[in-house]
């Protein structure tokens, strides 16, 4: 059977729907020892800021049942190093490049986006939902008005299609989804991490230096599927679903719920080969179920 795994986001074709989740895959280099990046639909970079960020103090990581907390705090070498070192590396592969953009203020987001105007980048992903940065994070990402406003400002200056990444720490994710749509987003991605906390009962202190961290991994998958489903029925934009995907089955679940593409995040940490395996597993599922075109699956469960 001839199967097609191609999907299209904002008019750009991805060879398959499997992407990497921002912050879990660096800028691809480390994982390229385990994964053929040519086999992925897209690589999404760690958040890139206008200037280098040092991030939070350690411990930055904690394990939780079926999940993990992180409080990296968006450490990144800044957009200059990204353009000089990371982007040329990624351009050696036949895959789409998505730059995750972060900032402490609207101005900083716009600055990054402007620096990327001429760069060979396929998509920009606006990270307005990182819970670990007070100024640039949660405040923007959970209020519909703020989401619409920053989306519009960044979109005005963006040369590439704009993905807006939504926070799950909200009462009604369809509100922020609609706000991003109204602001001009081309694609939505969800979910970022859920705010969590872990306490060490013997030391009687927080496990993370930052007190709270973002919860990700298999534990959050059912929440992510629900939110993707809700957004699929609330906006017209294509969705990139993520949150706890660690198998092709998890990815297909997300696609059936309404995602056009998926990102694999935390799972890279316990299986560095997982992103390629998920892509292969999706193809196998199409074969096995006699589905010729993956697009038949998008939002097929309603």
């Amino acid at each position: 059977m001839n199967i097609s795994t191609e999907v299209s986001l904002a008019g750009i074709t991805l060879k398959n729907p499997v992407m990497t989740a921002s912050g879990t895959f660096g800028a691809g280099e480390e994982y390229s020892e385990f994964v053929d990046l040519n086999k992925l639909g897209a690589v999404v970079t760690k958040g890139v800021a206008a200037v280098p960020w040092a991030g939070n103090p350690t411990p930055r990581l904690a394990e939780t049942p079926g999940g993990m907390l992180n409080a990296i705090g968006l450490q990144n070498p800044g957009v200059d190093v990204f353009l000089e070192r990371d982007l040329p590396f990624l351009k050696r592969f036949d895959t789409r490049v998505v730059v995750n953009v972060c900032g402490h203020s609207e101005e900083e987001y716009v600055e990054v986006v402007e620096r990327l105007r001429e760069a060979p980048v396929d998509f920009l992903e606006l990270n307005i939902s990182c819970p670990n940065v007070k100024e640039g994070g949660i405040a923007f990402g959970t209020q519909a008005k703020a989401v619409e406003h920053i989306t519009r400002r960044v979109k005005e200056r963006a040369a590439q299609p704009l993905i807006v990444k939504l926070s799950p720490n909200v009462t009604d994710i369809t509100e922020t989804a609609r706000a991003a749509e109204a602001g001009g987003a081309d694609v939505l991605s969800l979910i970022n991490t859920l705010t969590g906390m872990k306490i060490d009962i013997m030391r009687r202190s927080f496990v993370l230096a930052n007190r709270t961290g973002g919860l990700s991994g298999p534990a959050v998958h059912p929440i992510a599927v629900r939110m993707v489903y809700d957004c699929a029925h609330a906006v017209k934009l294509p969705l990139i679903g993520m949150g706890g995907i660690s198998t092709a089955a998890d990815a297909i679940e997300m696609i059936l719920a309404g995602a056009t593409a998926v990102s694999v995040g935390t799972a890279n940490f316990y299986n560095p080969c997982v992103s390629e395996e998920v892509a292969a597993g999706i193809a196998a599922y199409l074969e096995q179920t006699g589905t010729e075109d993956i697009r038949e699956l998008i939002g097929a469960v309603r």
Partner: protein
Amino acid sequence: MTKVRERASVLGQRALCPGVYDLRLLAPQIAAAARPGQFVNVFLNNGAHILPRPISLCGIDSENGILRLVYRVTREGSGTEELSRYTAGTELLLLGPLGNGFPTALDNAAVVGGGIGIPPLLELLWALPGKKTALLGYRSKSQLFLLEDFAVAADEVKIATEDGSLGIRGNVVDLLRALPEKPKAILSCGPLPMLRALKAYAAEEGIPLWVSMEERMACGIGACLGCITESAEVDAHSNVKNKRVCADGPVFRAEEVVL
């Protein structure tokens, strides 16, 4: 240096002293590539524990494809507790070898270990040339482990215990100060306060010092930026004063890092 994800199988496991386990794993690919001071990420057969347990290589038998890990169970319900229950035949996934490892072209070196930082120094001793001294700090006589192995691998072994129940009462810096001859280099692994004291001592004496660091890890290969340690200078990779313990370490020249 190729890292691999390898399905290893447990050859055997036993307790060395209460809470400290000696685990032998068949993992030929990793054993073939590994060097002293490197570590493996150990994955548990339990979906509740998704993160790796980074454990140093205490022994590398590349010929027979066997790795030896010596580790401490940290608490009830922990991943290491689960690991300690795995018996011969259990299969588990490893990622390794990870990290840079210790330098080994050092003559007249002292290896200095404290507590559960001691195991990686054993394989290191075999790799060091010339005369080699091992200075080991334990909590007490009742919590000794690997002492016999060190007696074979080092030319000289000195012990300090916190309670004075064996060797001198004191710490490894006391042992260093008591050495008749200063070592030409110090290679160390142990708790942070010990590393700090060593750094002060080494600076004072002008002895080059390498420290093996610990930090919580996720990817183990330098991608997630979870395991950083503050560096003295802006680091080339991070472009800030952060080094990744998993990829840039775990072994650092003492001057490179802010302990």
